[in-house]
């Protein structure tokens, strides 16, 4: 099976700065890959490149079988990106935000309520404008968009930052569910222990390149609780 993400020598610029300076990476279908590294190592840009938002100026970049250098827009609607700052309109309520995202993706707005319930945003909270929610609640709302849209590739930028223990468990459950339904996940993190525990492979970035790849402990953890992990091609 073809890899979901295939980067070879990918260089991406932010302004004139080479945020990615030649990334080689492949992510298999059903795999969970964590990306760690210091500030400015290129983690966010890597995820944005995979989402088709930052153009690749040299090298090879194929995501979900689409050549990003030819047509990045074809990838965008098939990936789900949870940005470092969740993409919510402050003046719209949580439910309105999710419904807008669903309608935009050509999906039924009726998926919004169950998705919001799945992330624990119910009742009054769902009717609160996003600007009035806490950072953690906003992150949950943004996650519910991904739950409802069920993209083929989840790209989560620092999903753990500022989340309490309950939310972290929720996140880990959502990732597991996504993988079980056939999606692949890439997420960035500052905490390399958490990253390793939650992923199949941990990629360490530095200076805009992949410096190191180690295997993670997610599958082992799953096996320990008696669940079979998905197969990696």
């Amino acid at each position: 099976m073809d890899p979901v993400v295939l980067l070879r020598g990918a260089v991406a610029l932010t302004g004139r700065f080479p945020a990615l300076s030649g990334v080689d990476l492949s992510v298999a279908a059903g795999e969970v890959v964590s990306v760690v590294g210091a500030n400015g190592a290129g983690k966010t840009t890597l995820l944005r490149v995979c989402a088709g938002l930052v153009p690749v100026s040299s090298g090879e970049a194929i995501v979900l079988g689409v050549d990003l250098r030819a047509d990045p827009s074809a990838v965008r609607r098939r990936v789900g990106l949870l940005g470092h700052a969740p993409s919510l309109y402050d003046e719209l309520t949580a439910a309105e935000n999710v419904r807008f995202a669903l309608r935009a993706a050509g999906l039924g707005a009726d998926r919004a309520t169950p998705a919001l319930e799945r992330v624990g945003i119910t009742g009054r909270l769902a009717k609160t404008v996003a600007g009035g929610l806490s950072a953690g609640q906003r992150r949950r709302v943004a996650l519910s968009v991904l739950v409802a849209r069920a993209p083929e590739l989840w790209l989560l930028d620092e999903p753990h930052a500022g989340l309490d223990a309950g939310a972290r468990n929720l996140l880990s459950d959502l990732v597991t569910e996504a993988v079980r339904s056939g999606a692949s996940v890439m997420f960035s993190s500052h905490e390399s222990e958490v990253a390793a525990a939650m992923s199949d492979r941990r990629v360490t970035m530095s200076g805009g390149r992949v410096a190191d790849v180690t295997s993670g402990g997610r599958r082992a953890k799953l096996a320990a609780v008696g669940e079979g992990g998905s197969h990696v091609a």
Partner: protein
Amino acid sequence: MWRDALLVAGKDLRIELRSRVALWQVLPVAVLSLVLYAFALGPARHTLAAAAPGLFWLAVLFSTVLATQRSFAIESGEGTRDGLRVSGIDPAGVFLGKAAAVAAELAVLQVVLWAAMTLLFGVHIHTAWLAIVASFLATIGLATAGTLYGALSAGLRVRETLLPLLVLPVLAPVLLAASRAWSGALTGPVSSGESWLRILGPFAAVYLVVGIVLYGPLLETA
């Protein structure tokens, strides 16, 4: 495309209804500018009445810049700019939706400005249909061209200063044609006002079509 346009327009207008930025910031500035023009020109009624159509459209023109900037400020909030691009909305739909929302805001603005102008400058519209048709076409032209340039400068650090430089010369024919058409509607002759619709119509049509075609490549670069 139309479904997406409706979705985006609805979203933008709902955000405007909640935030009231256009209502409490853009509109007062537009009305204030009428007062400032009067200060600049002197209080003589006949001077103001003669200049009224031009001043009215000048106020609308600058409000267009503000409204466009606001329209893209919504999308430049933390993360929302990416959101619109990964959402899967047809770029032409985004263009039509945002332009429609700006047009709706400009339409409300014109009604209020017209009332203010009637009060302050003592001018009256004699040929209502001409004023309305001219306004309609001019509003489409302003909103579409404004939205195109708004997208062009969106996300750039210099957007506040770049947008007026880019958009004002392009909108100059609208200012010219709409002012003359309104002049015809206010004081006549109607026939000379009418002929300006031949500028406003094509302008609106051209930027509507250009926007639908070129918004895709433009959004790519945001």
